[in-house]
């Protein structure tokens, strides 16, 4: 059984390598984050129609994307967690954000509709720590006067697979809850104190739909598609914005990108009045001095087109365009940092 799996894994890896080799010069190859896959494939189709250049993207997970770019088998890697500036320098990489999306807490509690329940980030983290175990706990009740909360155990659902969604979720908790920061920390996979794990956004959505009195977190698009009631979270400015394109782009706009070296900035808990507190982005990681300058150039042409013209497609897939000022910054970064 295992031998079989190992063999098929080798075959799969071989296939990826073969694809990378057989691709023609103008083809751009990338690998990584599953979060950006839908929008990248849409962009790729439109870009192909206009220019004839093709993008070949393998959505194998952010960790896989970083591993592939380190091995120089692709023109760019995509990751939901940015690489540290010092690691970028060591490897000769540069990175920049591509698209913005939101992560929302979703619940299955009888009688509570979308947007009715309000939580602070600290209480949300306390639920995931197992410190707050009942829906009518004082910490929740104090934030929701007038809302009828059931006297039942909270079933906590998290991602079981390593994921950028979990990375941003735990990063947010680490910013708003000291206890979480010292006990659990942040990462694509962490040692979850309580709860059950669902595989992928669809796994979490399925558990929250099936298990009574549960809470989970998914990308905004999954909450919309599955009609899961979402919870409002208090942002850094003390407001309770609704999760939507407006509050996600408000978070992207209020984040202080100018101060971030190599765009190493995680947008959670952004300071803006209207900012959704758990807003995330995906970074593209590329060589500053690529071996194949022509293909790297083709990749930059594609990203330039995508950042300037591809944002309508992003909106139609429930992602949010990058603010114009940020696009300008990224283009300046390209000229300053990348050769060829």
């Amino acid at each position, binding site marked *: *059984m*295992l*031998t079989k*799996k*190992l*063999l098929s894994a080798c075959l799969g890896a071989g296939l990826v390598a073969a694809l990378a080799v057989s691709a023609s010069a103008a083809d751009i190859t990338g690998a990584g984050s599953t979060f950006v896959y839908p929008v990248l494939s849409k962009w790729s189709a439109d870009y192909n129609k206009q220019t004839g250049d093709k993008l070949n993207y393998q959505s*194998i*997970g*952010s*960790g*896989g994307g*970083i*591993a592939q770019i380190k091995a120089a088998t692709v023109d760019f890697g995509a990751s939901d967690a940015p690489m540290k500036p010092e690691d970028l320098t060591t490897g000769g990489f540069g990175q920049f954000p591509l698209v913005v999306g939101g992560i929302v807490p979703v619940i299955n509690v009888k009688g509570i509709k979308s947007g009715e329940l309000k939580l602070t980030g600290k209480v949300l983290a306390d639920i995931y720590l197992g410190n707050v175990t009942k829906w009518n706990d004082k910490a929740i009740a104090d934030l929701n006067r007038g809302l009828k909360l059931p006297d039942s*155990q909270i*079933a906590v659902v998290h991602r*079981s*697979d*390593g*994921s950028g969604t979990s990375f941003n979720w735990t990063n947010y908790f680490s910013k708003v809850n000291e206890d979480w920061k010292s006990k*659990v*920390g*942040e*990462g*694509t*996979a*962490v*040692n*979850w104190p309580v*709860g*059950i*794990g*669902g*595989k992928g956004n669809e*796994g979490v959505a*399925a*558990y929250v739909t*099936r*298990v009574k009195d549960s809470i989970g977190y998914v990308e905004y698009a999954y909450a919309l598609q599955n009609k899961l009631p979402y919870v409002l979270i208090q942002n850094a400015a003390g407001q309770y914005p609704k999760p939507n394109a407006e509050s996600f782009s408000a978070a992207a706009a209020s984040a202080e990108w100018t101060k971030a070296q190599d765009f190493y900035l995680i947008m959670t808990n952004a300071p803006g009045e209207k900012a959704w507190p758990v807003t995330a982005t995906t970074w593209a990681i590329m060589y500053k001095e690529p071996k194949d300058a022509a293909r790297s150039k083709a990749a930059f042409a594609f990203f330039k087109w995508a950042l300037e013209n591809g944002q309508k497609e992003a909106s139609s897939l429930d992602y949010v365009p990058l603010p114009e000022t940020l696009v300008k910054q990224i283009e300046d970064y390209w000229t300053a940092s990348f050769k060829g």
Partner: protein
Amino acid sequence: MSEAMASLPATTAGVKRRDGAAGDRIFYWIVLGCGLFVLVALFAAAFSMVWDGFLAFRTFGFGFLTGMEWDPVAQRFSGLVPIYGTLVTSALAMIIGVPVSLGIAVFITEVAPRSIRGPIGGAIELLAGIPSIIYGMWGLFTFAPFMSDYVQPVLIDWLGPIPIIGALFTGAPLGIGMLTSGIVLAIMIIPFVSSVMRDVFLVVPAQLKESAYALGSTKWEVVRDIVIPHTRTAVVGGIFLGLGRALGETMAVTFVLGNTHNIAVSLMEPGTSIAATLANEFAEASDDLYRSSLSALGLILFVVTFIVLAAAKLMLVRMARQRGE
């Protein structure tokens, strides 16, 4: 399997005396290559896992097998929790799956009217052909809610208060967990175990059974005293084939086990298995130690499966010796 291999050179020697010896020699080398391929693949797989897992074993030592911790952030890993989950879910699958498989095989070969043997046999083979991801999706979307609404509340109410074994049936009826995984795994191994059993039951000589019936035996007595003793080794072989599959099953378990890194007495609680941990975490494991720990878990699964199959082989040898074969 081994008998077929052992008889190969003998056959070759027998044929060599005739013409076309050269062709036969080529044939010999070709099939020898095929046979050796298995060994090479096995050793290559084992070697690559030892190689990849070396860092984890060097860092954590023997504690990797006995520790309960799995913390990717703090870079501390150990394997007891997934090992436990793998063994418990497989054991549950065997407890449920083996008696049912035996019943199916006996029904088809001894009891069922000839007209429905074919359809049931075909249905078993179809069941064996369903990909495991389908069992996983079915388990998550259909079977888990059924367990949570109708089966688990009853088990918790009726069996929960009983001393000692009651501890196995406590907790919230989430619908997923060890018990659900065990049942889904049982459904997945039943086709393998029962079709092996059916095939060997069919080769029991009719004279033996007819003599027993002539002496006034009932159907049950014929099955118990003639059919099963006659086919014992093959039946055990089939059971262990099923166990091997249950130990390594990945996708179905990943969907219904709950993927929680803890050990709980209750069968209602979620847990994790080695295969599920690998499936969940490999894609995003970017640190060397993390990746190495996952490879080390893979090696442990490999070793566990090897031990189980070796034990089965030993058992078969001993049973054969007891009967003086």
